[in-house]
């Protein structure tokens, strides 16, 4: 850039205003107005900014710094010991951490499963039923219900010996039904099922909104070409919903990494750590085992993963979404 251009460049905010043959006094008046506008703008966002800085931004920085230390928050600050990358090295040798990572990735599979069920329901509810609004409410109820209450109910439903689920399975002839939440293999499957059940409503509402945005003439054109119902779904509906699906995948990934309440109440990570996830193990390390530095290292990894997902989302939005 040549210096001359820089010199004459106007501030952006001036360009939107009608350019009069502004003499100096007028220009100053405009500047004063702009300064006032800027001050007002900051005053309006100030409560939010101060709150976010104190309760979120500073803790984010603190967590990153703490991840290189060994400390327990019950002891005083001068007990903080710098240990460089020790926590990270330990983490990748820690079987429970690896297990929690694996479980997180396994739970990511709830996203396509939920999306498929929700899309089917959305297509049916959108066009082919009476009392559409009632159906929306019915499938949405688990999403707004307290996870604590839901988890407590499912604990009883999945009870290995006298829970209704196993009573039912035995009555239809299954001799040794799984022990669900008490079984190392099946506990995570139970979590998976409940997660799908609880999220269907949210996915469905988003899909119904997406369906309503598809222009009708696309279907009319398909009709003229003699397309069957399945062909229309396959070649019109699904591609037209790619932006919606993409949104659901991204929020789904972030949401899955945050699954805490369900695990905390339903299984507390057990049996034998078989249902632990990163955020639960993080909580356990920090607040039960009081290993602050170690837990912070997990936070650091979690933050990095979320950052990567966010960047991929920005890139992906342009590449894969068909509008």
């Amino acid at each position, binding site marked *: 850039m040549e210096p001359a251009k820089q010199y004459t460049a106007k501030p952006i905010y001036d360009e939107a205003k009608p350019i009069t043959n502004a003499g100096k006094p007028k220009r100053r008046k405009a500047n004063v107005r702009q300064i006032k506008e800027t001050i007002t703008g900051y005053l309006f966002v100030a409560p939010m900014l101060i709150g*976010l800085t104190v*309760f979120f*931004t500073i803790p984010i920085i603190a967590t990153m710094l703490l991840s290189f230390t060994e400390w327990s928050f019950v002891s005083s600050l001068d007990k903080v010991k710098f240990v460089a990358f020790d926590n990270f090295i330990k983490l990748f040798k820690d079987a429970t951490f690896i297990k929690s990572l694996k479980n997180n990735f396994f739970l990511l599979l709830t996203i396509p499963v939920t999306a498929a069920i929700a899309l089917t329901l959305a297509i049916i509810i959108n066009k*082919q039923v009476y009392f559409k609004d009632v159906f929306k409410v019915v499938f949405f109820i688990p999403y707004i219900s307290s996870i604590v209450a839901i988890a*407590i109910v499912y604990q009883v439903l999945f009870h290995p010996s006298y829970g209704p689920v196993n009573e039912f399975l035995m009555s239809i002839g299954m001799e040794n039904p799984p022990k669900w939440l008490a079984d190392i293999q099946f506990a995570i499957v139970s979590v998976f099922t409940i997660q799908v059940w609880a999220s269907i409503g949210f996915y469905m509402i988003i899909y119904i909104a997406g369906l309503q945005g598809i222009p009708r003439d696309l279907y009319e054109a398909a009709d003229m070409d003699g397309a069957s119902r399945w062909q229309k779904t396959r070649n019109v509906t699904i591609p037209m919903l790619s932006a919606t699906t993409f949104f659901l995948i991204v929020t789904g990934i972030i949401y899955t990494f945050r699954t805490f*309440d369900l695990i905390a109440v339903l299984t507390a990570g057990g049996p034998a750590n078989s249902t632990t996830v990163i955020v639960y193990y993080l909580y356990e390390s920090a607040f039960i085992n009081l290993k602050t530095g170690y837990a912070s290292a997990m*936070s650091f990894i979690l933050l990095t993963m979320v950052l990567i997902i966010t960047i991929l989302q920005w890139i992906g939005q342009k590449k894969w979404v068909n509008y």
Partner: protein
Amino acid sequence: MNKQLTFSMSKMIITIIMALLGIIFLLPFFWMISTSFKIEADVFTYPIQWVPPTWNVIENYTNVWSGDYPFVLYYWNSIKVTLTTTFTSVIVSALAAYSFARINFKGKSVVFLLVLATFMVPTQAILVPQFVLYRWLGLFDSHVGLILLGSFSVLGTFLLRQFFMGIHNEIIESAKIDGANHLRIFRSMAVPLIRPGIATYAILRFIWTWNDYQYPLIFIRSNEQFTIQLGLRRFADEFGSFYTLIMAGAVSAIVPLLIIFIIGQKSVIEGIAGGSIKG
């Protein structure tokens, strides 16, 4: 076009099938409610008796509400925390959202990006520093602390910003020409104009705060400060085998929300569909 007006047989059949599916989908809730009405001996009879053979409603619910566990207190705590959080969060978010949508201030895009960045952070990743901070500030084990954690919502800011941007430019401009400043425009024009948006966000914030388990678990210690979710958990832990009472507690925790949701059903569903948000 024979839409809507004509009765379609196939549509009716699909409706009935979907209704059955909907009932199966909600079976855990029916089981919960029905169990909360039963006597303990009938809980696990099989086949499941959906209509209690012996009704025990009043005993179960009085036991929960006026027994050793102060459910009334938990409820009151939850109501207090939830209403205050919703109120402050709506104000803080609306102010910021108006600024981002309607005020042309220097450095707006940078500030907006900073706000956006905190949105992606999983709350669990920063619990430890928040905990240390809370003990320093004396906010630990207090409702004020809980309320503050829920009051700065990036999601709320995004949602309301969308609504503020939807207001026609001329309305704001003509108010400016009349000499109104931003605070005046915000209070007497912009906020009333986006009332549906505010309602949506307020209901969502209410639901999320009422259901929250994680923050109370970490930041509340003493029984007198417990919210309903913590209280329910503690109750379920200690009454391990009194399933009728546990279910009566669970019903008590869910019902107020169901009522709010059913009243504000349209705003919630449209808000979620339109703003595409998730807490």
